[in-house]
């Protein structure tokens, strides 16, 4: 099992494409950090008008913790793409280059192969999140320093003391990893259905974008289905930055994500185990 996992990881990390994701995460982080360095004041004063009308806030609002939050929020849309880039390629990509049929003539059961490929995607996903923590959080802290963190929700202004922030980020990155695991499982599932790698990557992205829009639209019809969309739960990491961390809600969101992950993975195994390989 470990040997097979190592082989899958070897295949992932020997491919130049894999590092594009890490490059994109770095680039987006740097762009936001630069933007915050130059125009952060305006951005903040725009967002805080509702508060600064009545309150006088002094000190470095734009500190590392704040910038990290902005980066995380921005990357919410891109990271699924980067996860899909690898996870969506796990089966379809091998079908596309023709190695899948050779791989599947080896004495390994297909469910086991799926699990190994999923684990390999998971390792990649977690490394991507860890990298995001490095360039998003630690680099932001290095550039902007630490300080009390403000969090602007649509109906509340939240301030978190600086010695109370770090654990929240640890938890938030953990939650993000869970959310991305669900994405990885979905991309793998789509990958099992396809024989080319572009399809599942685009399909993953399409589903995430459409469902995210559904999740954020305030329409009665959508409000009914919202609780059942995994995209609604993917932003659960934000819960850790509330003054009263809604552990119940976060726990439920995490459960929904786990259920989705298991369902995606189960579907992948059930489908792929029966699939005739004609690629």
């Amino acid at each position: 099992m470990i040997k097979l996992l190592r082989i899958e990881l070897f295949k992932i990390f020997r491919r130049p494409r894999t590092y594009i994701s890490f490059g994109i995460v770095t680039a987006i982080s740097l762009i936001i950090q630069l933007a915050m360095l130059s125009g952060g004041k305006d951005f903040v004063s725009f967002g805080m008008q509702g508060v600064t009308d009545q309150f006088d806030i002094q000190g470095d609002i734009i500190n590392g913790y704040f910038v990290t939050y902005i980066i995380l929020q921005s990357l919410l849309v891109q990271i699924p793409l980067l996860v899909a880039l690898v996870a969506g390629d796990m089966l379809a990509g091998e079908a596309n280059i023709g190695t899948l049929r050779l791989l599947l003539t080896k004495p390994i059961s297909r469910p086991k192969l799926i699990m190994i490929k999923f684990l390999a995607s998971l390792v990649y996903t977690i490394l991507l999140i860890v990298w995001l923590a490095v360039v998003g959080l630690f680099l932001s802290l290095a550039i902007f320093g630490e300080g009390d963190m403000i969090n602007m929700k649509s109906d509340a202004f939240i301030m978190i003391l600086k010695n109370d922030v770090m654990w929240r980020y640890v938890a938030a990155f953990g939650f993000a990893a869970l959310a991305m695991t669900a994405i990885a499982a979905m991309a793998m599932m789509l990958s099992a259905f396809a024989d080319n790698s572009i399809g599942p990557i685009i399909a993953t992205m399409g589903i995430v974008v459409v469902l995210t829009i559904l999740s954020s639209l305030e329409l009665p019809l959508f409000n009914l289905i919202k609780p059942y969309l995994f995209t609604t739960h993917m932003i659960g990491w934000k819960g850790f930055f509330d003054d009263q961390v809604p552990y119940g809600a976060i726990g439920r969101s995490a459960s929904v994500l786990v259920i989705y992950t298991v369902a995606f993975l189960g579907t992948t195994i059930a489908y792929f185990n029966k699939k005739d390989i004609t690629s």
Partner: protein
Amino acid sequence: MEPIIQTQHLSKTFKTFKAVDDLSFSISHGDIYGFLGQNGAGKSTTMRMLLGLIYPDSGKIFIEGKEFNNNNRKLLSSIGAIIERPDMYGYLSGWENLKIFAALSGKKIPESRLYEVLELVNLRGREKDKVKAYSQGMKQRLGIAIALVHSPNLLILDEPTNGLDPQGIAEMRSLILSLSHDHGKTILISSHLLYEIEQVATKMLIIHKGKKVVEGKVSDLLNPEETLVDIKVRPDETLQAKLAVSEWTQFITNQTHATVTLKMNIANIPTLNKWLVNNDIEVVSINSTHSLEAYFLSLTQ
């Protein structure tokens, strides 16, 4: 001894297309088993079923006497295969590709064995190059190395000469013969070209539209007695009468005043030719085809 592969009433339908239809055959240890059929006849589908890539709708497969199915994939460790193109991870070196598939073979394989198979397929020295830089022939040979690395008893080679230049085809042919003679491998090889099969195979199976047409020893199927000789002559009214009283009449299958077709031993053509000349029949051309080849061609037309 048990057949290394045996199928019983194997059938597979894709949607409405019947790819393989009630196919039964068996391959014995030591055979070079030629699998002949036009494109789309069901060769690849059959081979994929033997390898667990495609699941049969009905019928059974036995590998070394044990029934093979998706829960019994361990049996695959006694098979090495190239299915269609020898596709590999182009961004990895030949060595890395070989190592990956060796590790997946279910057997513990020492590095020395890797060098051994590279030597065998004549890729030693090029193993550190990325596979995407390989020629088609090199990829094919690396494919063979991968198929061989875990020392399987049976090699399944699907159209191994496809896309190769004449020199590559010749090399592949001698490699296949050497694997059989020097290394004792049983080989299942498919082709849509009869002459490729007849040059290497000891046994052969022709399939058409998923069904078995004929199976047997190549030496039997390609019996020289079964050669079809087509003769064209300058139109001659006396031809039929002359032939009718000759010893050749027993071989004639078809004739006009300008053409004759005989089914006979290919060795008798010079004698026949001499007889024609001696009887003042002006020969325009003499062509010989084996009856199996003619039959196979008729299938593909």
